[in-house]
């Protein structure tokens, strides 16, 4: 029986076999190290509880001995019963205490781990969140640490109970009569041996079964994701047939697994739980033959019941430890992530100029920027343009040191960004990116992110400059309206303006601007543009542009293609060069002239021109 319960639900017993469990347990214990006193107290209580858990069986054993005596001492029997009751009370109390304490340890460890990871997130490169989605980090910080509770809070008392009690009862039984002990153990040993053999024979079907489970999960997810699309094309019959085929295959393989892995295992299962098989039958005969005393035999039987289902318990624990192992691995991925080297000697920036010199950057083995150099003098504006994936955003992120360059250098005011304290660097740069993060808090608090000590008047001034004041006062509670996950949802254009207000308030000499790629409605867009124009006044600006006309007046335009600057110059220069920018500009003009119509080819220009 335990085989089914421990493999089928999560289907990873065969993997579990490959994981050394002792190290997992050790890692869990190490995590709890800071609270080791209480943890050991939990272990001691757990052990005590395990010992006392034998009391009903011992009580029954003594009672049976007393009852087969020719003259029964009833008050002795009463004492035995009362001791049994007391023992059980003690067992439950100690078990409760042990569980309670191990929970306290678990909770404290969870708290420490969360603090540790939060500290870690302060030190990894800002770009860590690029490679690891927010969902992933949130999942680690919130859910995965939550599941560790099982490992820490339950395994300690339960392992003590499941392992210690049977060992003690076995020892008692050997002392009572070693022959009977062998008789009791024998069917279990045979069951264990059969189980081992069967597991080998069942490897194939088990693997097939695990495979089909994984495949069914994938197919179901795909089916659910795609159902709207296939229905739009009336291909849902085909898709559901595919799902149905998998379900059938699932049944067939599950039946096969049943035949070859589960059914043969049942004999072993029965043997593992049949301690009476030989003990009962042979024991009766031995007692009748006078080889064993009746009282001894009866007492032995009672204690044998306390041996319990050791193997089931161990299997269950093995399985759960394996799950903990997976969690620990994932936690370690974050705990051991590489940190941004920090060199915090105070250095002064000469001005707000930006210089990139032969900058290269790689994501893993893939180099996405190769030898990019440019210089933006203080107060000037550089526009980055290029097809998607050409490396524009990466350049902006390297300036803000979201990542460190793999070659070359990024300098601000003549100082390499790697030599600046991160706070110092961030104080000089304001970002307006497309993806606006609003946290739980009021509108005012969200804007105040730009500068902690800003007064209400300053916040309103920033909001006015960001063209956000009007919509904010129209909100139910004006500047005190809660935003964020539990608060009010704002439209994309409104969020953009909040982020501009933050940047206004921050008043940094350098502005990194990722022009919104999503079209807000025209009125929102006009407001955003006005706000951005004000924000850009007098600052050094690096802008990632998608709508080419907006940067016609930029001091310099750098055209990126495949991680390299392929052209640079003013708008007029680049048009005159007739290269990539000129082609983009032409496509851009044509795109502006596009009209929806049901008549043939509406657009100016030959149809294939853009596909070059």
């Amino acid at each position, binding site marked *: 029986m335990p085989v089914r319960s421990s493999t089928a639900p999560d289907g990873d017993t065969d993997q579990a076999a490959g994981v050394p469990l002792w190290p997992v347990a050790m890692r869990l214990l190490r995590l709890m190290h800071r609270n080791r006193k209480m943890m050991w107290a939990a272990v001691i209580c757990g052990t005590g509880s395990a010992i006392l858990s034998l009391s009903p069986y011992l009580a029954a054993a003594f009672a049976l001995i007393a009852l087969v005596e020719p003259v029964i001492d009833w008050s002795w029997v*009463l004492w035995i019963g009362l001791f049994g009751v007391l023992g059980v009370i003690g067992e439950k109390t100690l078990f409760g205490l042990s569980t*309670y304490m191990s929970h306290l340890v678990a909770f404290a460890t969870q708290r420490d781990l969360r603090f540790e990871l939060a500290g870690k997130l302060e030190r990894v490169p800002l770009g860590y969140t690029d490679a690891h989605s927010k969902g992933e980090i949130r999942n680690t910080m919130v859910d995965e640490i939550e599941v560790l509770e099982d490992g820490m809070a339950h395994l300690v008392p339960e392992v003590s109970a499941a392992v210690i009690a049977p060992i003690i009862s076995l020892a008692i039984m050997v002392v009572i009569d070693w022959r009977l002990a062998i008789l009791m153990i024998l069917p279990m040993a045979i069951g264990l041996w059969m189980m081992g053999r069967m597991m080998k024979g069942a490897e194939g079907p088990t693997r097939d079964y695990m495979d089909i489970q994984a495949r069914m999960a994938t197919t179901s997810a795909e*089916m659910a994701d795609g159902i709207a699309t296939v229905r739009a*094309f009336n291909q849902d019959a085909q898709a559901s047939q595919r799902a149905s085929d998998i379900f059938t295959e699932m049944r067939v393989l599950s039946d096969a697994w049943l035949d070859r892995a589960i059914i043969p295992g049942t004999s072993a299962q029965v043997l593992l739980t049949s301690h009476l098989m030989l003990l009962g039958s042979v024991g009766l005969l031995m007692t009748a033959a006078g080889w064993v005393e009746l009282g001894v035999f009866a007492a032995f*039987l009672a204690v044998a019941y306390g041996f319990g289902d050791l193997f089931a318990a161990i299997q269950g624990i093995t399985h759960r430890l394996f799950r903990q192992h997976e969690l620990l691995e994932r936690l370690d991925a974050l705990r051991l992530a590489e940190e941004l080297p920090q060199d915090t000697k105070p250095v002064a920036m000469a001005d707000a100029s930006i210089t990139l010199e032969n900058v290269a950057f790689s994501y893993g083995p893939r180099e996405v920027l190769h030898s990019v150099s440019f210089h933006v003098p203080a107060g000037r504006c550089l526009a980055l343009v290029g097809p998607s994936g050409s490396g524009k955003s990466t350049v902006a992120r390297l300036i803000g040191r979201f990542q460190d360059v793999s070659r070359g250098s990024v300098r601000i005011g003549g100082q390499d960004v790697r030599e600046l304290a991160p706070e110092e660097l961030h104080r000089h740069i304001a970002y307006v990116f497309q993806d606006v993060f609003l946290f739980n808090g009021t509108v005012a608090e969200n804007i105040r992110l730009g500068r902690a000590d800003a007064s209400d008047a300053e916040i309103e001034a920033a909001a006015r400059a960001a063209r956000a004041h009007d919509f904010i006062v129209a909100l139910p509670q004006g500047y005190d309206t809660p935003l964020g996950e539990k608060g009010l949802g704002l439209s994309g254009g409104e969020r953009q303006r909040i982020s501009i207000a933050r940047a206004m308030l921050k008043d940094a000499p350098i502005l990194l601007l990722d022009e919104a790629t999503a079209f807000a409605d025209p*009125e929102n867009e006009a407001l955003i*543009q006005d706000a951005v124009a004000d924000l850009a006044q007098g600052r050094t600006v690096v802008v990632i542009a998608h709508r080419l*006309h907006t940067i016609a007046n930029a001091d310099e335009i750098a055209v990126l293609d495949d991680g390299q600057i392929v052209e640079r110059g003013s708008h007029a220069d680049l048009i005159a060069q007739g290269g990539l920018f000129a082609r983009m500009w032409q496509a851009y003009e044509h795109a502006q002239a596009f009209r*929806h*119509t049901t008549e043939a080819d509406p657009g100016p220009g030959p149809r294939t021109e853009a596909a070059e």
Partner: protein
Amino acid sequence: MKLLTFIWQYMPPKRSQYLSALGLTVLEGVLTATPPLAVGLGLMQLAQGNTALIDVAPYAAACFLAVVLRIWVIGRAWKLGYGAGNHASEMVRNRIVEHMRKVPLGVLSGRWAPARLAALITEDGRWINESSSFYLVRFLNGVVATTAFLFFAAWFEPVAALGIVLAMSGGLCVMAIAKPIISRFIKYRNEQIAEATLRIGEYADGIAVFRAFGRSGDAQKKFREAVNDMHESNVAITPILTPLSQAGAALISFAGPLVIVLVAVLHMQGVYSADPLTMIPALFLTLAAATTFLVAVLKTLLPLELGSRAEVNINGFLSSPELAGTRTDFSDDLSLRFEDVGFRYADDKPDAISDVSFTTEPGKVTAIVGPSGAGKSTLISLLLRFHDRSAGRIELGGLDTMDADPGAIQSVVSLVSQDVHLFRDTLRANLLLGDPDADEARLAEVIEAAQLSELVDLLPNGLDTMLGDTGRTLSGGERQRVAIARALLKDAPVIVLDEATSAMDPITERAIQQAIAALEDGRTVIVIAHRLRTVMDADEIIVMDQGRIAARGTHDDLLARDPLYARLWAAQEKAAGWRLR
């Protein structure tokens, strides 16, 4: 029980097989009870003294043979029971998929989002399987064995049975009383945790931004508060929750000692004298009953409850209404008519749109414009029956869409929006979704028209390159063009376009426009436009505002007489002339 009825529904051809499995399980339960009983009887025999080997031989044999027989029975029972369970789960899963094809598509983006449905099929489906076969069988076995122990214990010594019943009913009572209290505490704790989780998650989401503003200190402080709050509520509730949840099972362990105490007290008080001889098997059976009850009955209650929960989840989905309508006889002109149409997403929500009336004509372009949240997309979702309207009438080709077969509507209308779902399959298979029977020549033609030739040439295996997370991922612009190619293959006479709101580089944008132009050619077009310029030449422009039609007409009309349109247009023109410096 509801769980059993539910499974029974999906069992038909295997019902007798399942019943035999249950029958064998009852037998197995009896066999489980046999060895302790036989040993008990044997002990009794021995206690009478002067026992010959032959006297206990039957008991010894029964004890041994019951195990042998049980090995045989359990194999049969499991094979039959699991086989039937596997069958039922397959049927349940098929039923879920069948239902997915028939509910309004709007349902699939709301409460029954893809991830939830996938979990329903795999996770809940698995619980149905587990509980219908393994846990139910095991539970039955436990109940039978426990009852047998109890019965024989009562037969040997009523006081023993009394002790067992006291311990068990005490345990069950405590569990019943504790259950609502526990769930109240758990609910309270979950609320606390959810609240703290939100705050912790926010830190994880926003850390990059906080750091970029040099404000990670504040964020860290709030984070620590949240973590501390969570810790405190955990610590406050555990001391109550732990004993409460263990108390019920704990009482069972008292059965053995309790029986001993009862017998002794009754004897010493002279109320009742138990026969020491029958006490031997009775005490023995008491231990067996307590252990079996704990392991096979109480411990299977939780998984069975999970099975019931899965049943509730699955039934919740299966009971959501399916789309009705079977007619397919659209008239040839396929004009679309909205008549006083109103819609709300839920009864307690305000109207998303109301009193919307307009008509489109074949071969013409109708544009829908307006600020975000005006109800533009809702109109489209009603036309395609992602939701069914709450008021008014929508006619397509002379048929009320509510009477029309939802599939038939899909086959005359193509929706092209910026949400493009690609399957983990080859590019070819993804395109052929539009028309599985298209030949190579047609495919090549469509690829050309949808401006995909360049992409196909670049892909390592051309059309046979795998897409999706294991294969090549396509950019937004490429996905758009795949969607257009599918629509070209599908060749429906009505095109509904939801213009992409995300800007791409100009070359990509231009390519998409050319693909769209090819698609629009000669068809009826309804377009939700974000850039007013692109619909300047539309035959009719419908201006939506706050769920209603604010104005309609041609571009020149509207510019002249509708202030909202004029304002939007002016804003757009201003934006178009904007320079960063």
